[in-house]
Structures are given as C-alpha cells and as structure tokens.
C-alpha cells in the first residue's frame, strides 16, 4: 500500500498501529482499578446512597484496589467526617449539604477494618471487608 506516495508494507503499518494502541492503553493498564462508594450521612448514621435502609453498612472491597469514597452530609446542622484509621486515611469534617471525596488504596492483606465518623465514632462506625 502507499502513503503520501510512498510504498510501505502492510506489515509495517500493522506493527505501527499495534505500538500506538499499546501506548494509548498503557496508562489504563498501569492504573489500579478504582471502586467508587457513595455514602450518605443522615440521622447520625452512614448509609449507602443506593441502600437507604441499612445503617452503617459493611463496605466490600478487593485487596489492592483503589477506593473513592464520596461522602454526602445530609444531617442538617451537623458536621461529619469519614476515616479509616487502619489505612491512615480520613476526610476533614464537612458541614451539612456538603460533599467531599476520599481516595485511598486498600492494602493487600484481606481482613476487616473499621471506618468511622471521628467525632461520632460511638454511633457512626462500620466495617470495611477486604477480600
């Protein structure tokens, strides 16, 4: 086949295309997959956004994956945060009607870890299960 009047072999074009594809995919391949979890705080309790009935739900994650926790504070007049002390990860407190995002990497060790709202940890605490 010819490109710009030059003759090039089909094999060379295919090889170039493959190299370009690999380069394009490289960032995606190297990135840790991200799991997004949206938590809503209501009545001094964490709920998953798509399950408003289970208080302080157990969060299921995979070892080594990257997790984005979106925290929405719907508790009028109250300040809340979200933290996983064992992962040394935590948000600064947010006021009601505010949203913030915490990104952390799950360790490679399976097991259960505690998540909390630090000011209200006696009531607002749940489990992160790493499998």
């Amino acid at each position: 086949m010819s490109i710009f009047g030059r003759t090039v072999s089909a094999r060379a074009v295919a090889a170039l295309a493959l190299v370009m594809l690999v380069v394009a995919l490289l960032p995606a391949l190297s990135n840790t997959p991200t799991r997004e979890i949206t938590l809503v705080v209501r009545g001094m309790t964490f709920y998953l956004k798509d399950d408003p009935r289970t208080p302080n739900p157990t969060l299921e994650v995979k070892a080594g994956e990257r997790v984005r926790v979106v925290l929405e504070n719907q508790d009028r007049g109250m300040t809340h945060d979200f933290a996983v002390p064992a992962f040394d990860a935590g948000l600064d407190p947010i006021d009601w009607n505010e949203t913030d995002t915490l990104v952390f990497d799950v360790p490679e060790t399976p097991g259960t870890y505690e998540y909390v709202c630090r000011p209200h940890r006696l009531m607002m605490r749940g489990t992160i299960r790493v499998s």
Partner: protein
Amino acid sequence: MLELTRRAWLRATGLASLAGSVIGGARLAGQTAGSPRAYHPRHDAHVMGTVGRTSAAGFNPSAYVRSWNFSELPPDERSRFYRETPRGDGTLLREYEIFAVDREIEIAPGLFFPAWTYNGQVPGPTIRATEGDRIRITFKNLGTHPHSIHFHSWHPPEMDGALAGQEVHPGETFVYEFDADPFGLHHYHCHTVPLKRHIHKGLYGAFIVDPKQGRPPADELVMVMNAFDTNFDVENDVYAVNTVANAYVHEPIRVQVGRLIRIYLVNFTEFDPVNSFHLHAMFFDVYRTGTLLTPSEKTDTLMLCQAERAILETRFRYPGDFMFHAHQTEFAELGWMGLFLAEEGRTT
C-alpha cells in the same frame, strides 16, 4: 439599653415584621425610606411573630408535641433507640439510646443556634413510662464537652448524673438504670458545670411517669417552655414553647371541641427566673408536678419556676382559634406564642 438592643435585634431579624409595614407606611405617607418617621410601623399592622418558616428538614414542633418514646420514628428506626421488654411482675423494661451531640438548630426562620442536644433535638426526646417500670438508658457522649443526664425522679445517688465525677466525657458511655417513680410529670437535663450553660444550650427533655391505673383518655400534648441567648450575653433573645419561635402560630395545634386535652408543661427557661402559660378564653385544671390525681387549682395563667412543671387539663367549649402564650408579654412578643385551632368533631 436592654430594650434598645432587643429592638435592634428585632429589626435585624424581622421577628416583628417591621420591614413590610415600614415600606407600606412610607409609601402611603409619600415619604422617602430612611426618614425617621418611616421606621414607625403602621398602627393597624398588628403583625406579631416571625416572618417565614423554619425548614421542614429540621426539628418539627408539630410532631414533637404529640411524641414520646420515639413514637415519631418509623418502627425499624424506632427500635434502634427504644425497646420494651415485659417483666414477670407485669411491668416493662424500657431501654433507651440517648446521645449528646452538637448541632446547629433553627430556632426562628433563618436564625440558627449552636446547640448541645440529646439525640440531635431540643428539647430531647420525651421519655415516658408507667410507675414501677425499669428505665435503662445507654448514654453516649458524642459531643465536644462533658455531659450527663440527671433525672428528676427517685433514684440512687449512683444514677444522679450530677455528683462530682459523674460527668460522661466525650467518647464515653454510661448506663443509667432506675425505676420510674413517682408518677407525675418530671424531666431530665445535663448536670455538668457550668450548669446554666449546659441546660440553656439545649440539654433537657420531658419525663412522664403514668400512674399504674393510668389517667383518663385524652389528647396529650408535651410543651417545654424554653428560650435562647443567641449572643451569649446571659439574656434570652428568642422565647418559645418547644424551641421554634411562633411555630404553633404558623401551624396551630388542632384539637377537638369537647375532648379532654392534657398538656404536660415543663419550664426549661434559663436566665429568667420564671415563665408562664396563659390560655385565652378558657380555664384549666392544674396538677402540679402531676404527682396527685386531684387538681390543686383552676386558672387561666400558671407561673412556673425554672424546672417546675405541671399537668394541665381542659376541654374546648367553642370552635375557633385560641391563643396561648407566656404572660410575660416580652417573652410572647419574642416568640413564646401559639394557637390552638378547636374544631367540632368526634369526641372521646
């Protein structure tokens, strides 16, 4: 000085709805806004109370007034805070989850107060038992200061919540346990020093103990007279029954003509030595502290000292609107004012 401050505050918050009448008056008189006369409200305005409404997402005085033992919550949510277990002798074990937490509450439209609360509300949840029941309260302090729960009731000193060393520190838990005794209308409050601040910030609630034989069936209402010092000068700026200034003016308490009405009235006003309850166009029987089953007086105005309480009983004779308010008229004008709306209907 105090009066000037109050007036300035009223103007600033619109509590007396001056702004509307000012503009109207100025336009009528053909004056420019800003001239001294323009600030005098029209005498026919007769507007008393707050303008606008507090958010429906916050505390609901109309739900609170007829709730006890978390009855306002849906069953699955309620069971997280209140459980009943029958005991061998026919009494109940009543278990409560009470927590202290800091919360900004709306006490008049747009006016927020940094409160310390039991279970996120002021007044705290009404606790109600029958005499002889066992009360067990798991108290968690999720606030930023030491707190406690001190009940007005018979109980051993270990359960007093007021003695040195009995404060529950932030992040700590304490279980209060005692038998409901005597029957009557009581209350609970934080007893951590400085006491006036801990109470005034919102840590109080009603505690009703029913006599074993019960009281005659009635439409029952819980009313806690309270007030808020919004600028922390040890003077109250907003007064109310059940926290939200003028709540029952905007949403009158609906009652039935002829039906027995029973009001559980508690005074938790700090800084002012007394508060009072006055009902227009009617009289009511008074059971002071509710500890006797015969009324001690029949009146239309009752004065209560701080922490005093009384059960009031009456029946509406006529349909229509009936004001009720503190007869310290200053308190009434600063929010402690409400309405009953009596309607003809089925009586019990």
